[in-house]
Structures are given as C-alpha cells and as structure tokens.
C-alpha cells in the first residue's frame, strides 16, 4: 500500500494477525509499514514473466522415511507448559467457545 496506510487498514491487518494494538501502535505501524512497502515496491520494476517462484531452495525431493510407529513426546510433557491444562484428561483448556 505505498502511499500510506489508513488506521482502518492497519486495524484490519491486526485483526487477521490476532494482535490487539493500541492507538499509538496503530499510528506507528501505519507510517512504518507504508515506508517499508514503498521501499519493497522496487521489486515491481523487475520483469518476472515466466519466472517460477522459489518457495524452497531444496533441490531434491524431501527426505522421505518409512512411516514407522515410534515414541513421541510424552503427553504430560507436552501439556507441561500450558497456562491452563487438565493434565489427567490430556487437554488444554481455553475460554468457553460454545455458549
């Protein structure tokens, strides 16, 4: 969005990113994101007709391996860092979603 970001646009991106921003952050990011994108916009001048995108630099196929059952992380270990877990039931607990 070279040329500037409105507060509404910043808020829309923040909603997609699951980020709560305060008013000063909205102002700051509106300006900084516009600056960075204006700079980044120089890539538009390059002719990329017919050029395939590079998503990964791996040249060969991914390293497949036999799909064998083997021990994974212990469930209690995996739950141990949760701020709210029901370890005995093997569950993470979150705020109520269904009313």
């Amino acid at each position, binding site marked *: 969005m070279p040329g500037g970001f409105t507060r509404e646009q910043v808020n829309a991106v923040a909603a997609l*990113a699951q980020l709560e921003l305060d008013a000063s*952050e909205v102002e700051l990011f509106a300006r*900084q994101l516009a600056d960075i994108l204006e700079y980044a916009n120089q*890539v538009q001048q*390059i002719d990329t007709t017919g050029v395939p995108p*590079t998503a990964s630099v791996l040249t060969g196929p991914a390293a497949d391996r036999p799909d064998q059952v083997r021990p994974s992380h212990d469930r209690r270990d995996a739950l141990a860092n949760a701020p709210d877990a029901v370890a005995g039931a093997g569950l993470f607990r979150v705020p109520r979603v269904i009313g």
Partner: protein
Amino acid sequence: MTDAATVRQIRDAVRRGDRSAVAVCAEACDRIEARNPGLGAMTLVTRDEALARAAAIDADPARRRSQPLAGVPVAIKDVLCTRGIRTTASSRILASFVPPYTATAVARLEAAGAVVVGKANCDEFAMGSSTETSAFGPTRNPWAPDRIPGGSSGGSAVAVAAGMTPLALGSDTGGSIRQPAALCGIVGLKPTYGRVSRYGLLAFASSLDHVGPLTRTVADAALALAVMAGADPSDATSAREPVPDFEAALTGDVRDLRIGVPARLLDAGVDPEVSAAYRTALDVLTSRGARRVDVELPHAGFAIPVYYLVATAEASSNLARYDGVRYGFRAAPDASSRQDDLQTMYARTRARGFGPEVKRRIMLGTYVLSAGYYDAYYVKAQQVRTLIRRDYDRAFEQVDAVAVPTTPTPAFRLGERLSDPLQMYLGDVFTVAANLAGLPALSVPCGFSSIGLPIGLQLTGRRFDEATILRIADAYERDTSWSKLEPPTR
C-alpha cells in the same frame, strides 16, 4: 590455558587429561559471571547441569578420547530448544517455556562431548540486526560497549569474542550469525540450507532459517560443523548429502581458486574503511595464489526487499502458534470482565507477549499474504528470489567463491537505528542473498576501523561446498593476525 583458548586446544587438553572438563567448564561459568553484567551476552547460566555433564566426561577417559569436542563449553542461542532448560527466544511470550526436547544441533554437540554452559541473548525471535529487541535488554559489543554487537545472534558472538566460551551456536535467517561475528571480530558460519537440522530451532522463516557455529578460528568452525552436519529423521528439509571431512579441507592451498568480486554491488553505501579492509583482504588471498574474477549479480541489489517480504510472510505464519494456549504466557483478562472470549484472549496474549519488532514483522507478513496483495508482493518476491538464485548459479560457473564485506559499516551505536526499522534492515544488504539462495557463507575477521571496530570478510560458496569457503578463510587467517586480538572489555 588462556581465555582465548580455541575449541581444539581445549578438546586436546581434556582428552590428554591435562585439564579436567569440570575445571574448564567451571572457569567458563566464572568468566560469564564476571563479564556478563557489563555485556548482557547470556540470559541463563546452567552451571549445575554443566558441571554434572563435565564430571561424566571426566569419569570416562576411554569415551572422551573419541569425542571431537570433549569438555568444550558452548553457549546456545536462546532460540534452540534445550530439554529441561528454559528457552525463551528472548521474548516475553516464552518467558517460562521449558522445552520437553533438545534441538538436534545441540544434541549432536553434546554427544560429541561439548558442555552447554548457558543460553545466549538474541533479538526477539531472532528478528533484528542489533540484539536490541531482546525482552532481556540489549547485548553490548566488547570492542566498544556503547555499540551494538550485531544480531540477531549478538549474545552468541559476544560470548565467544569476550572469551566466555570458545564456541557458540547461532541461527541465521538473513545474516544473524555472520553479521554479529563480523562486528565482534570472530568467525561465523551459515551452512548450506539443509546441511544442519533445524529440528528444535524455534521457527522464524522456515525456508531461510539455518543453524551454525560462532568461533574464534576457522578450524573450530569446521570442526563444529562436522559434528552437527548430516541428515536428521526429525527434519524433512535436512539433506542426505554426504558430509565431507571439513577439517581436512583446511590445507592452506588456495592456488588457482577463483574468487568472485561483484564490483557493481559494492559501488554504493560501503564505509570507506570497510572497503579498504576488504580490498586488502583480497590482496592477501591473491598473494597466496587465488585469482580474482569480476562477477555480475544483477539481482542481488534487490535481496533486501525480497527478503523482508518473504521472511515476514513466513514469520507471520510460524508465530501464529503463540496464542496463549500451549507455551506458558497467557494475558490475564481485563479487570472489567471475568473471562475474555477466546479471540480476545489470543489477541491480548500476543499484544502483551510480543515486542514491537515482532509485531511489526507479523503485521507486514500478514499484509503481504492477504487477499489482493499476495500476488503483488509475496509471489513477486518469490519470483525475484528465483532470479537471485540463478545469478549465483551463473557466477559459480566462473568462480569458486564470492567475496564481499559482511556488513557495509562497522558496529553502530545502541539506539541509533531502533526507531527507523528500514535503516536497520538495509544493514543486511550483503548477508540476505545467501539465505534466499540457500548457499553456505561465512564471515572471517579482516581488520579494524580507525577507532578499533572489527570488520568482516564474507565468503559465499556453492551449495554443499562449505569446504571451499572454509579453506579460503583458513588460508586468509594463516596470513593475518586479526583473530588473535582480544577486545578491551573482558
């Protein structure tokens, strides 16, 4: 044995029984405790765990004689998981995260006899070029404490430069090993993409992230790489490529090796003292018989915009997992409500858990992936990434390595670029291309500015040909004495 002992010197002394691993590691912890308060390199010292591990090495003389890193203290950048030891990414959102597993790179160092003595400070989630975005506060450059050490692996670089440990692990997504190594006067190596497993590295940008060593000497970097390299069943992007004997490649013989100089890329914006040190370094190599060849990298000048579009897009996706459910921190609800709804809990946890640079990159990445902008920014950047890769492929038809200064300037002052993210990003101009192309690259000390700030020479090699850039850097090191100099603040 002095503070400046190398990995190989310590390993040899411990193997022979001249030094105990316990004494070596206790001294490393003592040095961290003495020097760290002024430098902020380490955010956790694991003395008890280290001494227990060192004692086990001392108790088994037969085993340690075959361990290539017997008793060597190592600092681990705090983006690499260490089982049972807090791993924070220098972020408030992971302030209490204790991983249930150890990163493969760390586990391989430990299996080779290395002893983890603590976790090193870094930019939050490795996002930064100065180690100023850490939630623990900044790391300072031991050559000039009012200046930044580089980043994001600034704590790792300072641990080695200030003589706390002879070896540190870092991660490099756009220069985060090589740039702090250059600014702190040590060696930093980013291997080929896939050479070292990323399992247990907290992901920033998965197609650009690499794990590698920071050391005082090139030979030590070769040794550490040999220990960590090779396929890992836990990382599908790790390469099955055979791992050569990197130490055997250090012959000192660079006769007829062709070193590429992309003169046009170096035209603008390079500090004159950095340019002078770079040209002198090329002369040292040509006097050893290497040949200088001009190369064109027509798209390398676009590496910064491409990098900041691709890296932030990947980061916005990777960091979506930090939402207050699984990793420790969850923001408390507002006083007004007894409990937030789920979406509010996510957004508030992320707002309070992430710092400004991480938020900025998540915002940018979310934007470039969003409907209407995806093709114009993200796909376009990936197409230019292809052109950058092809530039290097063509250059490597004519040369064996490409040489540039690692950074356009020596270390800048703390705070100097913090309020202007674009200025901070532009400092990565010479390092990001190797990440975009997945090529091995290292930084080796090549001089000092007139006020005593280190300068680094970067060598980039062909895919999976770390051996050649290590050989060139080692030959250069033999003819110079930069790596023997020690910073004043230690």
